[in-house]
């Protein structure tokens, strides 16, 4: 009889253990997922050049914009629309020709790719967290966040066209 009792106790404990394991889902097999390249495309940093003055014409930033083709001539209609959007959505923090809360947009395309600019407008939260340059910019501007103003891609593109007209 004692053996029975022992057996039953063992059985009970086994059940308790198996209870705990019930929810576990084991991942098995091999993963052939390609690893992301560790190489960063950031331009070499010049000593003491603040991020806002650095030039990086290869980094496209992180966000929905993969390629932007700029026509040789500025599209004036689009630029006018962009100026209107800029006035309504951006002037709280940006002045065209001087540093304000954030950097000025004049000459931005001499320093940044058009894709980077649009991604910064459309996807600022991720940019300041993951894009190396945007991260540094956040620090240069005292941690003042670039606000996501909910522009559509079309509006952001128009703002970019407007930036081309700034001298």
């Amino acid at each position, binding site marked *: *009889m004692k053996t029975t*009792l022992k057996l039953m106790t063992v059985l009970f404990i086994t059940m308790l253990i198996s209870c705990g394991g019930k929810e576990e889902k084991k991942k098995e097999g091999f993963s052939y997922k390609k690893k992301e390249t560790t190489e960063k495309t950031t331009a070499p940093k010049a000593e003491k050049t603040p991020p806002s003055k650095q030039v990086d014409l290869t980094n496209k930033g992180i966000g929905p914009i993969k390629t932007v083709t700029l026509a040789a001539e500025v599209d004036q209609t689009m630029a006018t629309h962009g100026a209107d959007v800029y006035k309504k959505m951006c002037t*709280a923090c940006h002045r065209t020709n001087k540093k304000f809360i954030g950097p000025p947009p004049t000459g931005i395309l001499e320093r940044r790719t058009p894709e980077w600019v649009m991604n910064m407008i459309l996807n600022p939260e991720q940019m300041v967290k993951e894009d190396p340059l945007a991260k540094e910019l956040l620090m240069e501007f005292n941690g*003042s966040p670039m606000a996501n*103003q909910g522009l559509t891609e079309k509006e952001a593109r128009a703002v970019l066209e407007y930036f081309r007209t700034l001298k």
Partner: protein
Amino acid sequence: MKNIITSSIAMLVILIGFTSCNKGNNSGGKSGALASNVAERVYVAPGEYDSHYAFLSGGYSGNVTVYGLPSGRMFKEIPVFSQFPTSGYGYSEETKPMLNTSHGFIPWGDAHHPDISQSKGELDGRWLFINENNTPRIARLSLTTFETEEIIEVPNSAGNHSSSFVTENTEYVVAGTRFSVPIPQRDMPIKDYKGNFQGALSFISVAPETGNMDIKFQILMPGFNYDLSHPGRGKSHGWFFFTTYNTEEASTLLEVNASQNDKDFIAAINWKKIEEYVNNGGGTMMPANYAHNVYDEETHTATSTMKKEVRVVNPIDVPGAVYFIPTPKSPHGCDVDPSGEYIVGNGKLSANLTVHSFTKMLDAIEKEKFAGEAYGIPILNFEDVLAGVVEQPGLGPLHTEFDGKGYAYTTFFISSEVVKWKIGTWEVIDRKPTYYSVGHLTIPGGNSGKPQGKYMFAMNKITKDRYLPTGPEMEHSAQLYDISGDKMELLLDFPTHGEPHYAAAMEASIIKEQSQKIYKLADNKHPYAAKSDADTKVVREGKEVHIYLTTIRSHFSPDNIEGIKVGDKVYFHVTNLEQDFDVPHGFAVIGQNNSELLVMPGQTKTSVWEPKQVGVWPFYCTDFCSALHQEMQGYIRVSAADSDTPIKWSLGEDIE
């Protein structure tokens, strides 16, 4: 012998082992200590969503609180009838008109019975209606913005309690008076109540697109107390049912005097018939004075209009529209089952629960089997209309809800329990205690043609020892039960704010998807909005100064303001330029005699400030908005009344 005992103990242990292993969701039949997975059935993991919204009335808080089920977590308090310094509701210039009434500005209300709008008898999640009991009003809340959009005062009403329940397609939100009063109001001896006071039942039409409310007609009933009501649905759509008490028409010591009659009435109103009568020009317009307050989402501003007349209908002028069904004994809740056939009269002083049959009622009306009349209104025979009686289910029945599976759930205040019973056989299936003295109960969709069963929660009046004590005053307690099985299972206790009189709940899917994230700046039509930095300015108009102020992470524009004088009335019109989800900014200025403002993205709100002392005074953002929130501040210079300091404003003049 010893062996037998030990082996039986072992067997028992194994048995427990088996039971505790059960992680099935179906709780049918299991309850009590063996159902060890209760915790995980109310556990909503961090970052995950509840399956249901619940909108609880705040009672004397005047507001509505939004909860998630099954977690019992509170998400928001929506200000409705009471000033709310947290957001500035009722303090800001834009929202003060929401609390305007024929008695002037009222800072507080007693919110009672929330009800979600319906289409074809099902909850559609567009609006939430709720009544104010004390100064009779009905509010409509948007379930897109979760804000109060409209409040209409109800004239000729007093103690707006048998409210605010919607008909099957939200044709009407209905508001009945608990206290009868002289109509029109006049100076007369109180003791002459009987036969001279009347009770107004108001049918407020709801515009299908906008939800805008308008009192279509009021039925002037005999001077009873109209306690609660519910719409007919399905086969009884077109009817409305109201419980009454004090059919004795006592005006004093109602505790005794209103409990003399063995039976009071449920008033059955064929509103379709009265609607037709009114559409054909029936009824009379009587002079009245009541406020209609509407909040415009584009101007972010409420306007209050005083309405000067209301259409009233004398029930005896519309034959076949109003009947009384005798119901024992001071019935409280008046609840209609999902099919529309059964009308439950929760006789709060009766030992039994009375259920009437709609079919039998129609039959009795057709055969004109009347037991008598009250002020010209036919009284049906109790036995002719009776569908059944739930025999002695508990003490002090108050409210009944339905699960859509053929069962009803009734709260019993005195015996502190919820009793489940079967429609048709009237047998008691189950009973579970509540903690303590339960008032209302709610099943998601429980007041519709299609209940969304699984959960039921009881809202209790007395808390006592349920939580850590917090001095003499405590939040009320609610209990959540799983009703998917045969037996109800108590899952969770959670505290509620104010005194919830009823709650409306529904599956989260529809509401969750439509919930608004920001107000579009482009749509902002507030006359004092500054929609970009270029619009910011300070304008003096005599002794009034209007400051067009903007906020964005993390500064005010302008943030230096001069030229204000003691004795000025300064309007801070604050526009939040943010267009991102969940980035509000707050506004507070030293010595503000009203409240802060909490301004949502794209919104404009106004706070009036009347400086009394010369000096340079700070203002700042109250809502932690970014890493530079502490820097979000400004100064306003106040000069002597006779000074000639010019109006000036700026932001960041000294930036490189």
